[in-house]
């Protein structure tokens, strides 16, 4: 059977399924829908659903019982469910916690009262019918919290694996734009890094380090059972809980995809009860949290004068035309320079978020509708992020044995502007430093563009536009719309035997529009007029899972929970691409996209339907529990993936874990006064990873339309290999073996609780993109090597005060991780990779290494050794203009052998106009061969942190609440490429530099009369000894030469006060008058301070750069990162 037919079957299945789930049908676009609507069943179901939503059901009145439900602090509860046990009659408490319902026999009737977050209570009426006082106990004991573990949930006390969880109510108190941001610093062993500060910055989530090298190390995201690419498009307010499965004994149920951890997001479910409307909203403004200092105008012109003077008379005459004569330069002392950081990042930002949710229903049918609008402004002008979310959840009990739920999640995200989007793309944020402080005599620098290379030309053009104007030349819009529909049906076949089918369908529409203005290099390559491209990508995800769960007891003490299931996942994409050139400069980009036919001669249309990724799985889990004391979980999953060739498709992933609840042992009875929990857990499991691009196992051809041959003066599209990598039919699963041991403890009735865990993970058969020597190919995908991650995680929770009107708690988590590359391909100990931040300008090109016995993320380069001093030279030859390096004779004290060497020069490496002379940047001749070259590099930095974590405090006092959250990273190093590019002339004419390159702290050749000094003694007097300069001359480097050196590797440790929130909830007595059951206002400060020694904008940085397929191997680069902001927020939470 062909795949397309398969899909049709799945579609058809979905149609049948949607019959049961009426709203799914509404959205489905096929004509068959009409048929279904016409069917009798459909009409009935639809009407009944409408009725149940809109109507309130009352039972027949016989005896009316009234009362009030309160919580353990005496506060009345709104929306508590009160049901007469054994009947269908029930009601919901009102604003004052009051209820009234009819009972047939008050003498024997028992009321069942329940409320979310409270223990359910059975209340026998015993004939009493009025003024019932029912008090519910808080269910806050974390041990009873339900934890989602994949295809089911468990009480935390019964867990055998390692799971970190966070509840939505914790997230919702703090205003953030995304779910990932809200998680930062909260979960032990889960490191969350934002690539930079742009509003659409990528969130990089790593669970326990991540085992892959080239393979994607992202965890598996599961949103309401549905696999997702990321969780960026979920409104934080819609989240019920996030559970992160960390060890294979928990992730094995997700098998293949669980090797890097599983992040399970459960969106809010309908709670039922009386209809409530809530509104949550905030407004936010922000500003650049840190500024970098550039040279002031006078220093700036001095720097460029020195540069000009070093080039001789021609240089000075060009300089004079731009900036004036030497004697007048002091005039610049009084000039105020351009503040390019303000121009680039000084936008007046107003961000806002509004969420309205509607929750209601009755005992049988519950619904939740939630809509969120979020607009996050960027510091850069015309750069922002807008998102609409709608979340609809419907739960319905068809009969006692049949329950169904339906969920629709729609999101629509727009990003305006390119931001920094990957470092070297379009505008570089480092231009905020390097753009000229002043433009000199004329507005425009007089240079001859004909003498420049293409890159220099671009730089020249850019130097003559304000950064805002440049940004407008690179117009970009991204729009991502996701429509996700899921549904499930639970059929209680017999008591304790539940069959569940869940399925879902997700459709994504993604658009990317680019516009290049006339002054861009791209435009100059065609006809010098604006051009556009437009990529539309549609994604399809289908999922179907069937599970059968059987819970039973054997005898008194043997508890079993068995589950078996089957699942299918399919993901496919298709895209089309439009390209057209030659538009009028008068038209706005929006106009152009609406009228593509106005384009000039060059048009290009491409479409592609890449091969789908399909996965078929079978899985099972057995949980055994003896006397609630000994717990055992066994899991097995088999996954077949279409990414591998037949014969290698199936991977098998078993796991076993056990736990011992020591506290339940009789011999522990004495300790229970103070010890409330003690549990030891151990687990071992296997998980897999197949997260590689499709089509790596066999070759095929697809039509190519870029850089074609110009036969007949037209474009000649051609057949080219679909993948640029050499196909490898032998690819198979990458497998992670995890060992986990954990201890959960709690004291004083869980007032102090915590967990300590140790893990040791080994990943084998890494799916590695390795560079090869082969005709036509430079890389292939192979299963090679082995990595390991070991670590310890600790989390602690303290609830010091827990009273009605006051509470105070603190939490702390920390994760230590040590990763190691155990093995690479046979015979290979080192592999080199390029971060690509400077493309081929970067000396040595490869600035990262993967090395056996070391963690991933080693920065590789030269060791800075200050600068050449006059004492390194014998003499200066005025005739040739050359400095003669000194010959040094050393005697080895051990052998008595004397060696004679000149001071090692950097031959041709730096390419600077000053060559090798006093003040030239110096690097260590590590191999001692008398010359500094490519062979004198070593590991100069390690980007993996030793530990990461966070801590926070929260408290309430009467109506006030306050919280603080800190997060920290320790022991990592950052490769500050921005600093390199901003401390020399890099791809720019007359650039400015960071302020440490001032006349006083850099080696200078310029005397007080504006002459270049060549005499050794004078240079020494100016720059050495008593006047020793901190830095080398920036003219050590050529305009297109940058070099990774130890100087740019900085300590990246930091402690950040991520946010401080103070809120006030107006007493319910007051708010009730305005029909509000809750009204809270709050203010938050985000990114309040960062304690760090890092000199760049922010130590939390990871700019993905060119050639991103290996960007996981080149972490910690700071180049053109979008700076982070400090923000103020005011918001309200209102419930009606």
């Amino acid at each position, binding site marked *: 059977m062909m*795949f397309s037919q*398969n899909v049709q079957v799945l579609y058809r*299945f979905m149609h049948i399924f949607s019959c049961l789930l009426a709203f799914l049908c509404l959205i489905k676009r096929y004509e068959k829908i009409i048929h279904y609507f016409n069917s009798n069943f459909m009409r009935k179901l639809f009407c009944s659903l409408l009725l149940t939503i809109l109507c309130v059901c009352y039972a027949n009145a016989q005896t009316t019982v009234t009362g009030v439900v309160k919580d353990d602090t005496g506060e009345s509860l709104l929306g508590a469910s009160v049901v007469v046990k054994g009947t269908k009659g029930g009601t919901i408490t009102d604003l004052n916690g009051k209820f009234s319902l009819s009972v047939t026999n008050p003498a024997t009737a028992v009321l069942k009262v329940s409320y979310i977050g409270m223990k359910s209570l059975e209340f026998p009426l015993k004939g009493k019918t009025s003024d019932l006082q029912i008090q519910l106990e808080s269910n806050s004991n974390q041990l009873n919290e339900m934890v989602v573990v994949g295809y089911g949930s468990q009480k935390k006390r019964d867990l055998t694996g390692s799971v970190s969880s966070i509840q939505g109510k914790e997230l919702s108190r703090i205003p953030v734009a995304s779910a990932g941001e809200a998680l930062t610093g909260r979960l032990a062993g889960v490191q969350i890094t934002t690539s930079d500060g742009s509003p659409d910055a990528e969130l990089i989530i790593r669970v326990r380090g991540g085992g892959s090298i080239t393979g994607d190390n992202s965890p598996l995201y599961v949103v309401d059972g549905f696999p997702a690419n990321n969780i960026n498009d979920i409104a934080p307010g819609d989240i019920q809980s996030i559970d992160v499965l960390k060890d294979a004994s928990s992730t094995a149920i997700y098998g293949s995809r669980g090797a890097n951890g599983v992040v399970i997001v459960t969106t809010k479910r309908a709670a039922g009860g009386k209809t409530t409307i809530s509104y949550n909203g905030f407004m936010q403004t922000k500003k650049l949290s840190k500024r970098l200092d550039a040279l002031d105008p006078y220093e700036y012109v001095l720097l460029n004068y020195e540069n000009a003077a070093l080039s001789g008379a021609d240089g000075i005459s060009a300089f004079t035309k731009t900036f004036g004569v030497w004697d007048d330069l002091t005039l610049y002392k009084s000039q105020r320079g351009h503040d390019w950081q303000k121009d680039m990042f000084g936008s007046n930002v107003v961000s806002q978020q509004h969420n309205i949710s509607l929750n209601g229903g009755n005992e049988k049918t519950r619904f939740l509708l939630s809509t969120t609008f979020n607009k996050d402004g960027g510091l850069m002008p015309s750069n922002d992020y807008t998102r609409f979310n709608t979340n609809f959840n419907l739960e319905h009990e068809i009969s006692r044995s049949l329950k169904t739920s339906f969920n629709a999640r729609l999101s629509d995200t727009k990003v305006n502007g390119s931001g920094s989007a990957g470092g070297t793309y379009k505008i570089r944020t480092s231009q905020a430093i390097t753009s000229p402080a002043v433009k000199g005599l004329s507005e425009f620098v007089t240079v001859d563009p004909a003498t420049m290379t293409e890159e220099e*030309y671009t730089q020249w053009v850019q130097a003559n536009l304000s950064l805002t104007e440049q940004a407008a030349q690179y117009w970009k819009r991204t729009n991502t719309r996701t429509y996700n529909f899921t549904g499930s049906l639970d059929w209680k076949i017999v008591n304790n035997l539940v069959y569940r089918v869940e399925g879902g369908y997700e459709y994504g529409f993604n658009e990317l529009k680019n516009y290049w203005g006339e002054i861009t290099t791209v435009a100059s390559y065609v006809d010098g007029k604006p051009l556009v491209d437009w990529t539309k990508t549609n994604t399809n995800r289908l999922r179907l899972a069937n599970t059968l769960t059987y819970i039973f007891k054997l005898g008194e003490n043997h508890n079993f929970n068995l589950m078996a299931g089957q699942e299918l996942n399919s993901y496919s994409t298709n895209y089309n691409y439009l390209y057209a050139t030659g538009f009028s400069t008068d038209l706005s980009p929006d106009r152009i996209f609406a009228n593509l036919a106005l384009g000039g001669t060059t048009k290009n249309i491409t479409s592609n339907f890449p091969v789908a990724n399909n996965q078929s799985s079978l899985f099972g889990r057995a949980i055994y529990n003896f006397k609630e004391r000994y717990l055992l979980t066994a899991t097995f999953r088999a996954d077949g993936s279409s990414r591998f060739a037949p014969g290698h498709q199936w991977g098998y992933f078993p796991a076993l874990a056990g736990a011992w609840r020591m506290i339940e042992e009789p011999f522990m009875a004495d300790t229970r006064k103070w010890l409330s929990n003690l549990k030891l857990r151990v687990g071992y499991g296997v998980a897999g990873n197949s997260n590689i691009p499709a089509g790596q196992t066999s070759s095929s051809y697809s039509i190519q339309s870029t850089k074609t041959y*110009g036969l007949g003066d*037209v474009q000649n599209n051609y057949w080219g290999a679909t993948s640029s990598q050499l196909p490898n039919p032998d690819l198979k699963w990458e497998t992670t073996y995890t060992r986990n041991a954990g201890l959960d403890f709690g004291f004083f009735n869980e007032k102090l609780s915590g967990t300590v865990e140790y893990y040791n993970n080994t990943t084998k058969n890494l799916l590695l993109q390795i560079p090869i*020597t*082969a005709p036509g190919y430079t890389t292939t995908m192979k299963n090679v090597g082995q990595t390991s991650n070991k670590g310890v995680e600790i989390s602690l929770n303290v609830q010091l005060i827990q009273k009605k009107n006051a509470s105070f708690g603190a939490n702390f988590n920390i994760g230590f991780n040590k990763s190691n590359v155990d093995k690479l391909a046979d015979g290979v100990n080192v592999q080199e990779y390029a971060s690509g931040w400077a*493309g081929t300008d970067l000396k040595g090109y490869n600035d990262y290494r993967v090395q056996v016995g070391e963690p991933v993320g080693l920065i590789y380069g030269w060791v800075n050794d200050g600068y050449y001093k006059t004492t390194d030279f014998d003499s200066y030859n005025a005739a040739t203009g050359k400095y003669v390096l000194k010959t040094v004779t050393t005697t080895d004290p051990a052998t008595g052998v004397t060696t004679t060497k000149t001071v090692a020069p950097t031959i041709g490496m730096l390419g600077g106009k000053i060559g090798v002379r006093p003040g030239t940047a110096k690097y260590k001749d590590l191999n001692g061969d008398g010359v500094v070259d490519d062979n004198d590099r070593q590991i100069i930095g390690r980007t993996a942190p030793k530990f990461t974590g966070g801590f926070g405090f929260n408290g309430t006092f009467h109506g006030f609440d306050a919280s603080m959250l800190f997060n920290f990273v320790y022991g990592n190093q950052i490769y500050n490429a921005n600093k390199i590019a901003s401390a020399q002339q890099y791809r720019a004419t007359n650039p400015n530099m960071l302020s440490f390159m001032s006349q006083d702290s850099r080696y200078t050749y310029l005397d007080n009369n504006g002459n270049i000094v060549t005499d050794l003694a004078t240079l020494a007097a100016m720059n050495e000894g008593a006047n020793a300069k901190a830095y080398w001359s920036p003219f050590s480097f050529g305009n297109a030469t940058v070099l990774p050196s130890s100087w740019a590797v900085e300590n990246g440790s930091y402690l950040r006060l991520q946010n401080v929130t103070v809120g006030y909830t107006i007493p319910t007595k007051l708010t009730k008058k305005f029909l509000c059951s809750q009204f809270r206002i709050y203010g938050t400060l985000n990114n309040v301070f960062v304690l760090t020694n890092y000199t760049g904008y922010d130590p939390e940085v990871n700019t993905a750069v060119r050639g991103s397929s290996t960007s996981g191997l080149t972490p910690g680069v700071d180049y053109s990162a979008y700076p982070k902001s400090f923000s103020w927020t005011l918001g309200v939470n209102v419930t009606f």
Partner: protein
Amino acid sequence: MKTTKYIALIITATMFFTACSDFLSPTSLSNFDGNYVFSNSGDAKKMVLGVYALFAQDSYTSRMSSVWMQNTDVEASAPGALPDGTRRDIWSLQPGGLSSFGDIKTAWDHNYLAIDRANQCIEGIQKSAVANQKDMKMLLGESYCLRAYRYFLLCNFWGDVPYFRKAADATMQLDVPRTDKNIIYSGMIQDLVNCEPNMYFADEYSDGIERMNREFALGMIARLSLFRAGYGMTAGGVMKRADDYLDVAHNDSLAVTYTIDGVTKVARTYTEYYQLAKDYAQRLIALKPRLLNKNYATIFLNECQWIKPVNDDVLYEVAFGNTNGGGDVGWCIGVPVTASSKGTTTIQVGLTPSYYFSFDQKDVRRDATISKVQYSSDTEQGTLGITSLATNKWNRLLLTTSPGSTSSKGTGINWPLMRYSDVLLMLAEAENQLNGPTDLAKQMLLTVRTRAFNAVDYSQKVQAYVDSVSTNKDAFFNAIVNERAWEFGGECLRKFDLVRWNNYGQKIIETRAVLDNIGKAALGLELTKPEVAKYASYAKSLYYIKANGTITFLNSYYEPTTAQINNWTVTYGTVTLVDWAKSLYAKLTATDGSVTYQSANFTTYSWRGYTDLSGTSAVPYLLPISSQTIATSVFLNNNGYLLSSK
């Protein structure tokens, strides 16, 4: 119960669905397999176009085709004072330190990608059910030509290189050591000898000279044979012929078997390869004779105007489309244009002043080849300095369809790879090597030279000249060396010609000496020396007038007399002058007033990497293999080949 029925249906559907094993082998509507793409000539052509497409990459358009073909005695651009780790170190013959220069890796990778694509085409077409169709045979021939041309580039830029005749697959040994270039040349020649009879001549199909046709294949056999007969860099860092160090007599992979006029021959020694070159040049002339285009400049004007005549001078030119930003001819090479309605240039290929002076004054090729002016608008000319001479053959202002005022690259001007006059001169050269300056050799030189002069100058500049250089084999060879410089200036054939002739070093030393001597003469220095004195009359400055933006030079070669200058002033009013020969030597005045002289920067910098004053040792012309490539290979390294930078 109704719901139960639905559940039953769901379960059935699910079971049915999971039973399908094809679920795990999905196919894509956008992907095609090898059988399909070679099942008909239309799609097979699209495969071959994939090989051609790599000509459209920067690695070729502005690197291997032209900018990297410097610095010789003809094409040269002056780098800065010191190596800077970029393309300028290639110009200055100091490429040893460029192993991490990304452009070098890209060029290497693109050559091998082209070769692998060609290998896929060769295998696919041979296996195709329609392999016997004429169109398919043409495509097969083109694949061989394209592969041969890419190996030609590899062997010239990198010397001995890994040699693959089969398309890569994971089961092959993919990391292999260098193979001697002479084995590769022989293999490529044999392929072309075999496939050439089945190819179309340019006038036999619609795509003309923009695809590698039969005349190109024949010319390429001659060219590769001359390279196989000539010299190349060996690992030991010396220039050798195959015969000097390889067992040409017994190693069959150094032999080519071919049949010409019914006689089967085997070429093994360099003499036999000269014969092979001669045989195939003659075969082309016999099969497709033609007259040379009367007007030398028209050949290149045609390219600027996208005119592609068949049976004309150009046998094959690389086609750049007017769309999609194709080609850098008229951007990195050609007449400099700093601003115009048709965009701007970034000229990176220059011509030497000594080359300018080497032309006979009457040779029409000089002004067709060398531009002394640049444009700052469509009509406004300015002078170029003598050390910034540019190629006059291509000029973006001549484009008939304007690419736009802010355009730069992507002119769509085609790039000639083989011209008929090249075949004639190769024949002359091969014949001279075999038999000395025979009538056949002389006739070829005469034919090429005839076009270079006006009819009135024929007897003196063509006939008498050819006679004067035909006294012996060496003299005639020298004439061929000169004639190829004059005929192909700016077409960037020189570098590899000098390599195969093994006179690269000698030409550098000669050029430096000529430049210095002309400069000295212009400054009136050392006039007692005959080698200086002979340039005493050369133009120290050029005098020109400018009308409506157009510059007219009043002298071009000799310094005018005072009387002449006075005369010009009377005739034209204002006469402007630009420094010419006197820019070729530098006068330095120190602060104490003392004066010293030294070579011009152009002379000092341009061939900085070659320091042997005797001119006999090898020129370090080979590029290093990228350090990234080396890192992945157990065989490849940059040992030898004069690549060690220390």
